[in-house]
């Protein structure tokens, strides 16, 4: 009996090795040996003719044979599966260097990006955001801001007129007046917006954007102005030297212009800073008592500072844009870079 078991095993393994690369042949062979009516089952049937001792021994041998053959066939089959899978996956290989697919998100205008950035710095300092109209009364744009009629200070800002009384606002400063007329101090406000000046060349656009800011309370000083603006400029441009120069704007006194170290040349002097090593970035000052009087604040009780900056200028410096006009040409090749 044991010889028959050995013969059968040899025979089965031979057949397995011949059929190992063909799934059907393997299945057939497995069935022939291990199926319900297969050779192994036949062998088991033959056990009845044996003596109990022999039967036990032979039964064990046959069962062992069965286990071994099952393992061998299963292994061969799974090797076949594995191979086929490998082959299939190999066929599914893609050229991973082909470009990725995505729906391209749109871009924000660089002026919007900078405006958002500046708004976020100031709201972080507790400033509120306010707005005002772009077509503005002469009163708000000039007179209440201490620009008397027939005063040469008005020449500082070439004005578009809609009528004798109405102008396109030349700065966002009128929002100061509008806010102060409505609210009492303490006030911390910034006012971003579109402004207009009758000037158009390489470095002037008839329409541009400004952000006005002001803070009013009982004891706001020029030292406070310096601190807030230095903090702001360091947030906006990174650590940078800042200097304050006396200057004149009718609605502030003392008035100042604020420069930062040239971001292009680091202060060595270049075309952008006209060789000075400094870039003028802000106009600022202590709110003029006449402005407080125009909104019925007592200038003895309240003091405050105000400042304004041009958004396009900051955008040009931060993004390295050399030509102002690009900002309003709406060339997608330009806009998509931001």
């Amino acid at each position, binding site marked *: 009996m044991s010889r028959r078991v050995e013969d059968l095993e040899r025979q089965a393994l031979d057949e397995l090795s011949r059929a190992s690369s063909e799934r059907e042949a393997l299945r057939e062979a497995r069935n022939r040996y291990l199926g319900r009516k297969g050779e192994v089952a036949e062998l088991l049937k033959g056990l009845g003719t044996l003596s109990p001792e022999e039967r036990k021994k032979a039964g064990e041998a046959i069962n062992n044979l069965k286990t071994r053959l099952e393992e061998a066939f299963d292994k061969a089959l799974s090797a076949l599966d594995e191979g086929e899978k490998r082959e299939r996956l190999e066929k599914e290989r893609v050229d991973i260097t082909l470009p990725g*697919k995505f*729906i*391209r998100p*749109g871009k*924000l*205008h660089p*002026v*919007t990006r900078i405006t*958002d950035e500046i708004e976020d710095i100031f*709201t972080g300092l*507790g*400033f*509120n*955001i306010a*707005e005002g109209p*772009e*077509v503005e*009364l002469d009163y708000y744009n000039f007179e209440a801001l201490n620009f008397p009629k*027939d*005063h*040469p*200070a008005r020449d500082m800002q070439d004005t*578009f007129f*809609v009528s004798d009384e*109405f102008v396109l606002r030349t700065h966002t400063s009128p929002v100061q007046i509008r806010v102060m007329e409505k609210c009492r101090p*303490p006030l*911390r406000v910034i006012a971003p917006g*579109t402004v207009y000046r*009758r000037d*158009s060349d390489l470095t002037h656009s008839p*329409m541009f954007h400004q952000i006005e800011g002001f803070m009013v*309370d009982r*004891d*706001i*000083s*020029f*030292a406070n102005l*310096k*601190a*807030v603006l230095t*903090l702001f400029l360091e947030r906006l441009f990174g650590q940078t030297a800042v200097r*304050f*120069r*006396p200057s*004149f704007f009718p609605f502030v*006194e*003392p008035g*100042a212009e604020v420069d930062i170290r040239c971001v292009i040349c680091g202060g060595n002097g270049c075309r952008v800073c006209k060789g000075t090593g400094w870039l003028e970035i802000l106009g600022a000052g*202590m709110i*003029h*008592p006449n402005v407080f009087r125009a909104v019925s604040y007592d200038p003895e009780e309240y*003091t405050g500072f105000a400042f304004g900056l041009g958004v396009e200028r900051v955008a040009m410096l931060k993004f390295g844009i050399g030509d102002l006009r690009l*900002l*309003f*040409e*709406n*060339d*997608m*090749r330009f*806009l998509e870079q931001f």
Partner: protein
Amino acid sequence: MLFSYNWLKEYLEGAPPARELAERLTMTGTEIESVAETGGGFTNVITAQVVECEKHPNADKLSLCKVRTGKEELAIVCGAKNMKPGDKVALALPGAELPGGFKIKKSKIRGVESQGMMCSEVELGLKDTSEGIMILPEDAPLGVDFRTILGADFMMEAGITPNRADLLSIRGMAREAAAVTQAVFKEKEFKVDEAGRPIAECATVSIEKGAPCRRYAARVIEGVSIGPSPDEIKNRLEAHGVRSINNVVDVTNLVLLETGQPLHAFDLDKLNGASIIVRSAGEGETIATIDGKTRNLDPSTLVIADANAPVALAGVMGGGGSEVTGSTKRILIESAWFEPSSVRRASRKHALSTESSYRFERGVDIEGVTRALDMAASLVLKLAGGKAAKGSIDMYPEKYAPAEITFRTERAARVLGVRVTTDEALNILSRLGIAGREASPGIISAMPPSYRMDLTTEIDLMEEVARIFGYNNIPTTLPIAAMSPGETAMATALRRSIRSLLSGSGFTEVMNYSFVSRELFAMAGVKAGKGVELLNPLTEEQAVMRAGLIPSLLENMARNLAWKREDLRIYEIAPAFVPGEGLPEERWKLAGLLYGNRYEPGWSFPKDAVDFFDAKGVIERLFEGLGIEGARFEASGHPLLHPGKTAAVKLEGRHAGVLGELHPDLWGRYGLRKPAYVFELDIEPVEKASGKGKKYRELPRFPESARDIAFIVSEDVPFGDIYEAIRKTDLKTIETVELFDVYYGRNIPSGTRSLAVRVTYRSRERTLTNQEVEDTHGKVVKTLFERFKAEVRVS
């Protein structure tokens, strides 16, 4: 203002070097925008004298000169003809570098060695044209660096702010320089030799009552000879941008530049009645000004008149009839003070801004009127001869009275954030020529000089103290404030949300000018003449404030197509301007444009073009993102849009905007090959509808059951109606109705279309039985048939 450092130094002792001075002025409020070194654009050029000149042995047009430098004699080959033995010249030695990087070397010219070059003014960068080489004055020393002869100078360009009229002169700038540096200001003295007859015999002056002229002074000089000015004066004027005319006119201009006091010289013989009358112009009077233009006058303009007619626009420009010419013998020099606003009005009215009007508008020193007059008279006597009349006229009825200003050191400390002591403040004020005294402890009483008309209140003095103290010496101290959150205006927050949602939909933001041409304005669908127009536009392209944004986006599309950008998704958020009762109404709008492929051209995206429903989808997605529900789209019309592909957008029953396909009639105008889609929404109703805030809706706990229906129905039945009808069949159990197919064509009768929808049934209370779902679905099918005559194919 452009000014010469050397000229400034005539008024200063111990002036710092030019660049240091410029820095100091800038940091104290007088911004020096540029410093240009002049007369020094060359090296190694010395003075020399021509000893002899011969013809070049090998060239007819060249000379061979011997030139002496004091140390040696050199042989120079020269192409010019204008020199003769004895002439002093500027000689560039070998190794010299001339403007433009031109280097001088020893060289053989036609076989003869030249040991240098005699220079012309052009070669030295001194003038734009010259004839021959430069011949120096006879008294020029020999062998010295030519730059020292030329007097190398620095021209500084100062940005003078409108409050500092006192800096619009050399003398004023020198005064400021002395205040902000260690230099000492020294005055120049002028004496007028009054050798002529009494002035009362020569001319009379009167000022009309109420005329905006607070002082009028004049001198008369008889027997002048008009001629060119000496080079030194010509050069100085030219360097300051003033053309040299003749000796008398040049003197008035020179004194204007030096003192800031505008002057005018009249030909006295051309003044009728030898009289000057300062008065308002009469209605219908005219004047021919020296620029050759005839100007119509009215009583708003102050003029200087003689007995008959106006002879000058007061403070602005003189008249041609009385100007000083080559034949003038007797002159009257005017030095006056006119009201700034009066000069400004006249200057604007006649669109005439002059050196004179510029200064009067800002305010000249009323106390400096006669000093300038005397300086001019003494210079005229020197340059043009003649005899000055005895005495001068000085109509000055109401003398200048300085006002006292109180300065509180305590208050200054509060405003500046730094304590400046009374002594420090007094010291600073006195450096600025402000007379101050401590009236009581910590209180200064100060009197500004007459030339500082900008100083009238305490805050003006604080600025003076602060700027001389130095802004950079004021500490930086963060303010102490009650904590409060920085609040973003609702409008700002909404605009940010819209931008972010549209970015997600692939839209790029554009920014256009608010003013457009009338044509573009009209395209927005507003009747002509109903816009907010500019009185003084820069160009006709920017004449009127736009009433809608779509025309601008269409222009952007056309330009980008020209740049070969064929797929566009752009938007803009900006106000549209509508004339109102008072100020125009500013209606914020959002407009967008889609053109070209739905997906960007790639190697595997489908290449189909956007259609109406892409545009509609953008708005629907935007509304979803903003939490807006219940938007309705209704078939509508718009002059720019395809009549069959236009929808009005309604929010909460209000008109909120429009979307649609650009009218095919407009394809040609923009060079389109495919349809473009645009939309424009009013921000205000969007803002109203979006303020609801999001609320969680409980997740469903019971299973759903979906049924599909396909049916054929007339094309005229809008899907929106079908959708509503299905939903309303049973609002409780019909959860969603989704359209998943629209089919026209084969097997579908013309005039009809096949629609397929999936209806999802679900109850929020329990699991629906199959029978319940079938019953409701049966009602849906029935509704479709009964209401819309739909022929149900599959259900």
